């Protein structure tokens, strides 16, 4: 058994299935990178629209830095909670409640992120910062909304994984799925770093 493998949860308890799991992780990276291209293009569109406020609400009006800071902390907390779930899965596969507990922490944190984000969205609509108002606002809603949808999708995925762990336990298949979910989850945090820096902070700097 190879000791080199660094994806958590993948180098313990495997008997010959390692190569297949590695291939699946690589395939998942290919998906993540295509998703990165999507995000990157939406970022580029946002870049071209950043001054196109057409007299409507601009970055100063839509950016609430306290709210953005809270969202950043919640998403980082969720990402970190997921890391702890992965480590529990790798080192204590017999105690599935440890893994499930950290998954619950990650999910709760992400749910709070979405709630704070939705409060921001609601605020935007009340000040007339709706997507159809200007090119800037269309691009803003597209970019932040696309990320929010990814997080919501990730929450559904986490719920599905929780159900699978409850039914099947931490089998090799489930471990491999949770590992890929972890890549997705950390990837969304990377995208959020770009959003809070380039969209919100740079917008009001």
């Amino acid at each position, binding site marked *: 058994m190879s000791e*080199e*493998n*660094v*994806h*958590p949860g993948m180098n313990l308890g495997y008997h010959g299935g390692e190569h297949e799991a*590695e291939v699946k*992780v*690589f395939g998942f*990276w*290919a998906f993540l*990178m295509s998703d*990165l*291209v999507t995000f*990157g*293009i939406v*970022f*580029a*569109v946002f*870049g*071209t629209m950043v001054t196109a406020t057409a007299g409507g609400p601009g970055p100063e009006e839509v950016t609430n*830095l306290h709210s953005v*800071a809270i969202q*950043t902390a919640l998403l*980082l907390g969720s*990402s*970190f909670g997921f*890391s*702890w779930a992965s*480590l529990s899965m*790798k*080192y204590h596969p017999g105690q599935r409640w440890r893994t499930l507990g950290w998954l619950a922490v990650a999910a709760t944190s992400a749910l709070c992120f979405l709630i704070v984000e939705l409060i921001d969205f609601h605020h935007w609509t009340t000040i007339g910062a709706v997507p159809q108002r200007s090119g800037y606002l269309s691009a803003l809603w597209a970019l932040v909304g696309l990320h929010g949808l990814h997080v919501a999708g990730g929450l559904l995925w986490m719920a599905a994984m929780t159900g699978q762990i409850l039914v099947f336990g931490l089998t090799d298949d489930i471990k491999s799925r949770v590992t890929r979910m972890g*890549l997705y989850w*950390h*990837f969304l*945090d*990377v995208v959020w*770093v*770009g959003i*809070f*820096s*380039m969209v919100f*902070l*740079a917008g*009001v*700097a």
Partner: protein
Amino acid sequence: MSLKERLLLDAKNQEEKEERRFYTLGLVLSIVLTVASFGSVMTGLVPHSWAFPVLAILALAQIIVHLRIFLHIDLTRQKREDLQLLLFTVLLLGIMAFGTLWILADLQARMM
């Protein structure tokens, strides 16, 4: 428990400890970089013209921390394929995203 089993368990505990420490380092670095980003804008300590480059550098640093620690991208042989895929995607994005920004900024300048 035989001696061999005990040694294996010790090694496993040690590995777990190291891995937890590594993740914690990632969390601390992320928090420091995030606070620096927000601080540079909220305190007004950074001159206005410097704000964007400072934010871009801090964001890039944090993305590298996330990739290295949370996404396990490194230079070992096993991970090199993931790294190559990532770098190729960044190259494509560089062409498409930077090209978009360049062309449209140029067009806008000509329309003024």
